[in-house]
């Protein structure tokens, strides 16, 4: 439905825009600026608070807030450029705003990239008529370890509170008091704990909200910006890395309207200091008599070659889903083509069957109904998807979560069964999905064949026929799909499971931190680890090769929509990167691997992406079209959903352990002190009934026990949690088995 065009005159320029277009955008279409502070369409309807956008409208006696008006046919608008009245109105607004603003631009982080500074230069008075003392208050206030608030600089545009209220819907930021004493605060002065808190820093049009990690670190004129893609999760938000002297100083959003709409989560925004972690591996390390010792690259490559040659036929590779497609492809070429080592532990990959229901994430916002299945809250797996779902709810969609804590409570691991139930004729929710023109399905949890079961449901419901519909799998790793595809594309031979394992090659931090990979290492004679952090290699690696972070890499990743996106090197790594040593090592086995990501991409793309040219990906990658539906391989016998089944089944506890996947977890997050408050608490969540039976209340110290192992945690009664479950963040669950008992300590 295309809106009719209306003709509007702005400063004597005539422009045609669709009826209902905001006046700010209408003027923009005519190439004219209506200056704003509070106006931000992503935050919902305009509020008209700051009064910066005052314009004169023919036929209206008073100046009007341009941001609150929409284009009407025949409207004649005059901005400061042609209306003395509008110019005076805007100058007045700036004069008022500056009455209490400290004008400490020389020491303000925002200086040089500050809308208040810019608009004051363009529309403001050159001098002040204010002769009284300015209002002063304590500053800066730490809203959280990540965000500092300077209330003197604040101009009360309410962008941050609107973000908290309307976008993140966490109700954390509020305005309190009134009149000149109005101030931004967190509710009850609690720390601003939200996975999305950093967005308010970017939204702030002045230097009131600043990043504690960036404060006083750089000036806009001595930084560069590098456009790249976040590798924190499978959403693949488009980001811009602020670089000063080859150091990543800050991450900002780069707004891909279909993926992230300009929002980032705090994991994506604030994990970059891990690049400078004290235990960062910058030279190769080899196990010696006194533990890991630094060796030269020549020695390291010799050792690696020796390890590989002596283990030929008995090599297993564990890959991280955070590797680029190029690293995975290069490594696969070396190991599979050079050594016929086909056996690998691959990250959870998204099923190709979902390609038939492909849609941009932005489609979620327009949905009539959104059904989420799986054990994990969406925000813990793909935070930005949670914002899209919040937006859908705000737009009137019915959002139904089916999980152990959902609107529909299902036991952990039951999502596959649930999909079958929904597909069955007569199921009420299934019928609603069938009737909806725009229905969205989301799989947020482990298992289910990487969304294969969801694809079967989507097909059953006929979503492949409906363009506004879609089905998404939220994988646990950022590029599991690309890595798995690259591994399989590099050679044709089938996997054989060597026993015993001669050499375990561990690629990347995720794999290095994975307990199941550690368990595999127990069965391996020797272990080669490529990692960024020494802490992940100590004690089990025979040879450590330094790894790099996503911000130091060139390459591509495939996000959860199936979009191929390009990473660009924002900062040079402190060591040769993976492709450099893989290339050198491959040469020793007669395999040709380029050390350049673009060349590796070109080779991999011919197998993977129908020769999609690297340059074609561009700064804002396009989403490929839908593929015809191909039924995925049927579900194998009850796939172990979630944690591995306990090896010893003799102990029967009363509660099923759910290892909760937490967003703020992993080796990089652990290395940023400021993120510590965001990490999951050492708690076990119980349903009210289970807690009551055990005489346990929130805050009680408890022992969570399974056969032969025990963890001390605090209890939290979760009213939404289904009975029969003990939910523990993965990082606090230790070696607990699938069946546990919780006892008051």
């Amino acid at each position, binding site marked *: 439905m295309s809106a009719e065009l209306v003709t509007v005159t702005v400063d004597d320029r005539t422009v045609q825009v669709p009826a209902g277009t905001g006046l700010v955008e209408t003027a923009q279409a005519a190439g004219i600026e209506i200056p704003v502070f509070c106006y931000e369409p992503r935050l919902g309807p305009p509020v008209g608070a700051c009064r910066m956008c005052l314009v004169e409208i023919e036929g209206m006696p008073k100046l009007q807030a341009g941001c609150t008006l929409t284009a009407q046919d025949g409207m004649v608008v005059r901005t400061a450029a042609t209306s003395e009245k509008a110019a005076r109105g805007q100058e007045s607004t700036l004069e008022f705003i500056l009455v*209490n603003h400290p004008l400490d631009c020389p020491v303000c982080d925002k200086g040089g990239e500050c809308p208040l500074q810019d608009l004051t230069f363009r529309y403001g008075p050159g001098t002040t008529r204010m002769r009284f003392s300015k209002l002063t208050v304590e500053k800066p206030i730490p809203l959280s370890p990540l965000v500092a608030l300077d209330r003197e600089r604040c101009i009360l545009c309410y962008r941050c509170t609107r973000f908290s209220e309307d976008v993140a819907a966490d109700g954390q930021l509020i305005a309190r008091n009134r009149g000149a004493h109005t101030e931004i605060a967190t509710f009850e002065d609690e720390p601003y704990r939200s996975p999305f808190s950093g967005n308010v820093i970017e939204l702030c049009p002045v230097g009131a909200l600043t990043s504690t990690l960036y404060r006083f670190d750089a000036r806009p004129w001595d930084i560069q910006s590098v456009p790249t893609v976040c590798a924190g999760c499978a959403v693949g938000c488009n980001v811009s890395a602020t670089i000063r002297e080859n150091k990543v100083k800050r991450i900002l959003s780069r707004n891909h309207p279909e993926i992230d709409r300009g929002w980032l989560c705090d994991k994506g925004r604030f994990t970059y200091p891990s690049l400078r972690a004290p235990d960062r591996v910058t030279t190769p390390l080899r196990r010696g008599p006194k533990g890991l010792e630094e060796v030269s690259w020549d020695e390291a490559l010799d050792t690696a070659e020796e390890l590989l040659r002596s283990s030929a036929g008995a090599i297993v590779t564990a890959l991280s889903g955070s590797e680029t497609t190029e690293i995975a492809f290069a490594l696969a070429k070396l190991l599979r083509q050079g050594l016929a080592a086909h056996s690998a532990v691959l990250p959870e990959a998204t099923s190709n069957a979902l390609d038939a229901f492909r849609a941009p994430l932005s489609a979620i916002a327009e949905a009539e109904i959104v059904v989420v299945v799986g054990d994990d809250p969406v925000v813990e797996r793909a935070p930005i998807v949670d914002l899209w779902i919040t937006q859908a709810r705000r737009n009137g969609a019915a959002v139904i979560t089916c999980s152990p804590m959902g609107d529909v409570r299902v036991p952990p691991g039951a999502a596959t069964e649930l999909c079958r139930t929904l597909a069955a004729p007569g199921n009420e929710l299934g019928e609603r999905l069938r009737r909806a023109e725009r229905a969205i399905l989301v799989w947020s949890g482990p298992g289910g064949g990487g969304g294969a079961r969801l694809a079967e449901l989507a097909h059953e419901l006929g979503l492949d026929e409906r363009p506004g519909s879609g089905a998404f799998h939220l994988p646990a790793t950022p590029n599991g799909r690309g890595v798995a595809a690259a591994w399989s594309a590099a050679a044709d031979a089938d996997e054989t499971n060597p026993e015993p394992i001669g050499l375990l090659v561990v690629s990347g931090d995720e794999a290095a931190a994975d307990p199941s990979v550690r368990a595999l290492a127990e069965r391996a004679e020797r272990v080669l680890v490529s990692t960024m952090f020494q802490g992940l290699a100590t004690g089990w690696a025979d040879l450590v090769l330094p790894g790099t972070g996503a911000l130091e890499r060139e390459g591509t990743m495939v996000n959860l929509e199936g979009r191929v996106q390009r990473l660009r090197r924002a900062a040079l790594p402190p060591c040769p990167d993976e492709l450099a040593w893989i290339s050198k090592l491959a040469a020793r086995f007669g395999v040709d691997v380029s050390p350049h990501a673009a060349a590796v991409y070109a080779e991999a793309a011919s197998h993977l992406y129908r020769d999609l040219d690297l340059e074609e990906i561009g700064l804002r990658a396009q989403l490929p079209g839908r593929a015809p539906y191909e039924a995925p391989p049927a579900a194998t016998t009850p796939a172990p959903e979630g944690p591995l089944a306990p090896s010893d089944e003799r102990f029967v506890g009363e509660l099923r352990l759910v290892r909760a996947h937490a967003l703020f977890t992993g080796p990089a997050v652990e290395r940023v002190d400021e993120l510590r408050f965001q990490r999951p608490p050492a708690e076990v969540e119980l349903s009210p009934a289970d807690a009551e039976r055990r005489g346990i209340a929130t805050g009680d110290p408890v022992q969570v026990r399974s056969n032969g192992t025990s963890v001390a945690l605090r209890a939290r009664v979760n009213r939404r949690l289904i009975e029969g479950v003990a939910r523990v963040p993965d990082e606090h669950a230790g070696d607990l088995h699938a069946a546990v008992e919780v006892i008051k300590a």
Partner: protein
Amino acid sequence: MPERPELVFARTDGGAVTDLEEYVARGGFVALAKARAMEPDAVIAELEASGLRGRGGAFFPTGRKWAFVPKPDRLAKPHYLVVNADESEPGTFKDREIMLRVPFRFLEGCLIGAHAIAAKHVFVYIRGEYEREFEVLRSALEQMHARGDLLGDVTIVLHRGAGAYICGEETALLESLEGKRGQPRTKPPFPAIAGLYAAPTAVNNVESITTVTVVFELGAEEYAKVGVEGSTGTRVFSLSGNVVRPGNYELPHGITLRELIYDVGGGVPNGRSLKAVIPGGSSTPVLTADDIDTPLDFDSLVRAGSSIGSAGVIVIDDRCCMVQLGIRVSQFYEHESCGKCTPCRVGTRWLTQILQKIEDGRADQSDLDLLLSVCDRILGTCLCPLGDSDAIAVASYVARFRDEFQEHVHLGRCPFEGASSLEGILAPSALHGAHGHEHEAVPA
């Protein structure tokens, strides 16, 4: 003595009718029956014919306001009638007397309004400090509940405010009623289209709603004979300040200030002379003693350079320093500014500061210019009328009493030198209670 037809307070014998049986015995709920026998459109037409205009301050025709509410078949959402009983304009205290003395006539008007706009829910947003008024209304509602036929399928909800002047602004009131921070919304959309819970809503003042009952008691034609052209009917004037008999007086529109102050109110006490009059609550421009023969109706007051506002007439005698009055008024608006839009939040405070500087004798000519310039920059640039109110009031004091302001500057002190008294003229804002922050002490 001017003629004093009692319409709003009819059949009360100067007292209160808080017993339902008594109200019915005195002809109560006949108007409701009459209105309910009519189609909603006819009810609205009758109101239009009566010439009834809003008593909250804006004087908008009540019938036309209701006509803006879309018919239920055109906008399939619940419709709401919201009554603004958050009376807080300094110098205005009529609605409380209406609620205390004729609670049933008021509630009857609510039901007529609900019928006219097809609302099943009426919300009465009552000022938090109005404890007695709330109890009277609650008792009246309970009595009506006991007789099922009166309320029909309409639910009337009494909602108490929490002490914010801004919640008398209709969109801030709606925000507050929804449980949000009381701050005005941008218009459009207007409440008639997207008001309470984004549904069609009419927001009317207590006196307006009560007068709706009067219109159906008398018939539009009879009602329109009272008052003057353009300002029909009676008005409950709140008379306060330096006057012998302050209080609420129901009088027809069009009586003069002289009649109200001298004939009804007994004039200025203690042989003092009249200096100024604020005719419609603190936000309206001041008039001087020379304007004493101005009739109290909409058009006449506009011609005199002021406004009938909420009909709160504040009488000021010759002891009053106009700069001090400016400080008192400006402090009120500064204190009550919600903080949402820039000019009001910053400007009201700045005005108070400049006025204080003038009063303290520290000001020079440029400060006087600055005062007017700040008024000018607030005026017409704010989100709602609160900031304008301060600017209009203060600018009018300077305009009408320029010499007095000038004298402060020339003498380097207040010409009254402590002899000034604002006794009885509005309450200092410190007496309104501090809300969330310590307020500076107000000079006596």
